[in-house]
């Protein structure tokens, strides 16, 4: 899903500065968290959606959005949180995926359509360090809700994988 950036580009470029607190190489635009930017008179409304239901970073993200926008000269800001349509890794930008990999986190690899299959064999995930596909999952649940833990059998390095969602 491509977000329409044409309206209020000056606001979007401010939002680009807000980093995800858990994966600081990604901006909230790379992640696809910001869904809409709207003006009601001089009141600026930013619509955001959480990656995961219990994502503890949402409050921090909302605060950072406020601070960046206020510094950029927007005094009246309201932040709206929506759940629907539910966030998916398909909204992550290509640039975001490249940044993730450079940071040492394997980006999400398949599209999220087959996620309801319960015992699907996971694709072999490519190691972000040495690009080997000879990797194995250590745990479905990693350091944050959005990541799994993997190990590369070629270079022996453990790494995080940003789950498809």
């Amino acid at each position: 899903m491509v977000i329409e950036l044409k309206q209020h580009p000056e606001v979007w470029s401010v939002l680009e500065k807000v980093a995800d607190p858990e994966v600081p190489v990604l901006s909230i635009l790379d992640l696809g968290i910001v869904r809409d930017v709207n003006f009601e008179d001089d009141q600026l409304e930013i619509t955001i959606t959480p990656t995961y239901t219990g994502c503890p970073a949402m409050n921090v993200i909302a605060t950072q959005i406020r601070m960046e926008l206020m510094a950029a000269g927007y005094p009246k800001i309201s932040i709206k949180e929506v759940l629907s349509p539910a966030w998916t890794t398909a909204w992550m930008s290509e640039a975001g995926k490249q940044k993730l990999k450079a940071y040492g986190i394997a980006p999400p690899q398949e599209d999220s359509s087959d996620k309801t299959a319960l015992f699907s064999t996971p694709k072999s995930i490519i190691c972000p360090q040495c690009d080997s596909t000879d990797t194995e999952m250590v745990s479905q649940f990693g350091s944050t809700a959005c990541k799994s833990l993997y190990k590369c059998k070629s270079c022996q390095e453990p790494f995080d994988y940003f789950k498809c969602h």
Partner: protein
Amino acid sequence: MEQKFQYVQRLADAPLILGQRLCEWCGHGPILEQDIALSNIALDLLGLARNLLQYAAELKGEGISEDDLAFSRPEKEYQNFLLCELENGHWGKTILRQFFFDSFHYFFLNELKNSKDDRLKAIAEKSLKEVTYHLRFSSEWVIRLGDGTEESHAKMQEALNEIWPFTGEFFQVDELDLLMEKQGVAPNLNSIQKSVQQRVAEILTQATLEIPEGTWMQKGGKSGVHTEAMGFLLAEMQFMQRAYPNMQW
């Protein structure tokens, strides 16, 4: 409106109480990965409970907040399944309890996402993605431990015998369920029962575990009659609000 409030609050209670229970494992898991996994699942469940309680608080109005609903109710007003409040026991028992809840939860949310209530629909769609991971995780562990060593098998069978009578409550229908179903808000519980039972039987068979013969089932959660484990859980969960009413941080 009052009835929908009651219903949404009830939906929140199961993930709230189970999430609270799972948090007790934080820092005590058998190995780091399992510790993290349970904390992740607890986080998802508490997130779900928050979404539902925020909605319930809006339906209620009167300046009520999600925190009031989570932390300031007496035991009798919680309507979670008794299964959710059961003590953690050993790792195998925790996993088995999780497996039963996930099996129900997965199929329940799958239906709830067709609700005529847009808010519940959105919440269900969002959570279903996460619960799919939960069910996969707990299913794999039930198989691994049930079909594992002699000791792990014995422990799992013992846990199954203990937990089994708490697994009938998912499908006990009361007036509120019926009313909400009639309004198109709630799923028909009978219609998901078969899918849940099929899934449970499939995994337990793979895990070489035997379903106990007794058919008597516990009940009480929906009417606020809890096991003795609940009071201890609430004492801990509500401690700050009881000791320092209306405190914030």
